């Protein structure tokens, strides 16, 4: 009986070692059910910062202006040169690069400062670059409760740039991820057909950036 009782000493010592380890080691953060519900609802957090960019704009094949050129977008019969701006509180907070001669303009929310095929050389140290994530993000940064306006344009060199459409938006109307809006009827103020707006939480998942990047890496040999 005495010997059986004395076994509590080694068992106690093992438990002491295990207990001390669990106390001293940093514990991984656990997701609470409250946090999960918040994510599932997909509503934007008004205090958080979000990246917003337009990944696709499709326009009607006729321009909005009336300059006796049979409603063509460009004077030389080319398709429009699309670009967009995001305005916040009357100021432009983001302007995209233009996409030439297309009815569908696509943009990615990230630009790497080197060609993807050269990345391995960069990593090996043959080319030295400093990559700052904030500088390579091609998106507007706004708070979750902001009101923004997306302005879409057709860039013209000789004539004034045409407006393609204007969408005033409250971020509270959008969901995290991809938001698609459609405009079935070409009106006097709106020559756009569909627009795909991406909203990504700054501290949240970056998979929306990662997946297009990986797809491109697989295509480029």
């Amino acid at each position, binding site marked *: 009986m005495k*010997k059986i009782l004395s076994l509590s000493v080694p068992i106690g010592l*093992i438990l002491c070692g*295990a207990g001390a380890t669990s106390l001293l080691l940093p514990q991984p953060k656990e997701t609470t059910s409250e946090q999960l519900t918040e994510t599932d609802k997909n509503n934007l957090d008004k205090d958080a910062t979000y990246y917003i960019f337009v990944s696709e704009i499709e326009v009607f094949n006729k321009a909005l202006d009336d300059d006796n050129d049979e409603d063509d977008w460009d004077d030389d019969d080319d398709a429009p040169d699309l670009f967009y701006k995001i305005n916040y509180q009357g100021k432009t907070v983001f302007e995209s690069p233009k996409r030439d001669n297309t009815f569908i303009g696509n943009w990615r929310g990230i630009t790497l400062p080197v060609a993807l095929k050269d990345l391995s050389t960069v990593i090996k140290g043959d080319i030295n670059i400093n990559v700052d994530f904030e500088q390579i993000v091609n998106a507007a940064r706004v708070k979750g409760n902001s009101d923004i306006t997306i302005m879409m344009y057709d860039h013209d060199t000789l004539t004034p740039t045409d407006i393609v459409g204007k969408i005033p938006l409250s971020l509270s109307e959008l969901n995290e991820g991809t938001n698609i809006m459609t405009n079935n009827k070409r009106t006097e103020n709106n020559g756009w057909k569909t627009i795909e707006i991406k909203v990504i939480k700054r501290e949240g998942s970056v998979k929306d950036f990662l997946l297009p990047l990986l797809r491109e890496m697989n295509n480029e040999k």
Partner: protein
Amino acid sequence: MKTIFTLLILSCITLGIGILAPTMQTEPRLNINNGDYTEIMNILFPEEFKTSSFSILQGITHMWNTDSKGIASLIFAFSIIFPVFKILALWIASLNLCESKCPGKTLNLVEKLGKFSMIDVFVISVLIVTIKGLPGGSQIHGDWGLYVFAFSVLLSMIAGFLLTKKATKLETQTN
């Protein structure tokens, strides 16, 4: 006898630490088209590409929850049950020896268990080697918990060896 008890006490403490301390470290990597994109991914996506550690207990729990109950049970038996049982047997044998009683049956048991010494460390090492090559070039390394765990097994082995020596001496004196 003091040495044997000290070794057993240290073995107990290090075993407790070894079970909960990080034993395996996973290092996510991204290799596509013979190019290593890990470093750039680390800068771009630090959350997804961070290195993470697992203890023996976390590994067992994870395997149990992901329907690898057979392997989970095997590692649980060899990494937790077996070393604890071995230390308890050595402890009883040492107490017997203290009372100048020949440990006899207990020592036989310890000797039999001794044949399986280090098998627990071997199981973890095999596990690490087996899953070392993950898609995309991700890697798994042994962490400091593995060395603490191995040290605990080593201490119990030395304690067992000293105990057998003492018991043989006692048996010779008795005869």
